């Protein structure tokens, strides 16, 4: 895992740094002091190394805490693991925000589209039914008008006969 690699790499760095700054090298550099105080030189060196290692380890821990590196490393491990079957390079930001934000919108636009399609279908169905009732209403009104017309004509016919009859009673 990334965390292990990170720790191993830092430890290796420290080991090699300490190996480079060996006691021999230290003595060679501080020859004049070493001649006067060999024991003290040794203890100064030991303290120097252990303090340097402690400081560096402390710094690494601080960086890890500040950046939440442990958490990030493990979640990145998971993300990489999930992508292990992929060969081809994955998408990367194009540098043109409006291009990139488009895809983020698409799922919601598709949802919106299916919502509109459903609403339209329902509306059309509903309107079909209402249109049927309107047509039936029109037919009914036409029928009523026909009935009224028929009754009206019947009465008008009677009315005409009535007038004729009255005519016959009038003195010539």
């Amino acid at each position: 895992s990334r965390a292990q690699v990170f720790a191993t790499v830092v430890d290796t760095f420290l080991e090699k740094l300490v190996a480079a700054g060996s006691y021999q090298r230290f003595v060679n550099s501080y020859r004049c002091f070493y001649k006067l105080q060999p024991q003290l030189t040794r203890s100064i060196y030991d303290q120097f190394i252990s303090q340097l290692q402690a400081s560096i380890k402390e710094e690494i821990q601080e960086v890890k805490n500040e950046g939440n590196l442990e958490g990030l490393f493990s979640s990145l491990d998971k993300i990489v693991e999930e992508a292990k079957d992929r060969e081809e390079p994955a998408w990367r930001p194009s540098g043109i925000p409006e291009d990139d934000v488009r895809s983020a919108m698409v799922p919601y636009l598709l949802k919106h589209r299916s919502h509109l399609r459903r609403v339209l279908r329902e509306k059309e169905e509903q309107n079909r039914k209402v249109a049927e009732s309107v047509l039936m209403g029109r037919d009914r009104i036409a029928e009523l008008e026909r009935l009224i017309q028929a009754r009206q004509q019947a009465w008008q016919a009677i009315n005409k006969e009535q007038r004729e009859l009255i005519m016959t009673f009038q003195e010539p």
Partner: protein
Amino acid sequence: MSVDPMAYETQFFGFTPQTCMLRVYIAFQDYLFEMMLVVEGVMLKKLDGIPGCKVSPSQIRKCTEKFLLFMKEHFDRLFAKMEEVLLQLVLNIPKNVLLPEDRVHEQYPYSKEEFQALQDELQQLQQQCRAEVAAEQALRAELEEQKVVKAELEKILQCFDGLESICREHGAGNFKESFALLTQNSKKLQDVLKDIEKKSQKMK
């Protein structure tokens, strides 16, 4: 040399990996310098305590610079190696990896044209919905109107029914027939009347 900003890694970590390494480098370097100063301080203090000591502070300083120079060279080389490894293996996102927040780009790789087509379709659907809503309003308005008209027409029909039922109430049964009967009877009456008039003429 073009600098790789490692922007994708920055998107994940929240900081640029190079900055992270720089921060560590500076801290390590500071520690190294500090420790060297401490070492030098301890030695100078010790030498102060030795009467007639021939080793001068500048000598000690030269020793420090010599050791530090050596350490710094190794430190830089080792750090460069560490940085290279960490930037490659730990603080990097492999090319085939997509961050979760970008998964949508994999699922919906819409080109500009496809996106525009989708938006046009949405626009058209919205217009159709509006048209259907308008149609519904018009249809419902006509239904309301039909209600009123039907009620009026039915009222008129009821008038006719009322007329006929009045006739029936006065024994006229079916008005048309009874009127035909009336007309018949009146004609008969007229014939009888004429007949009577004729006879009375003869009798004069």
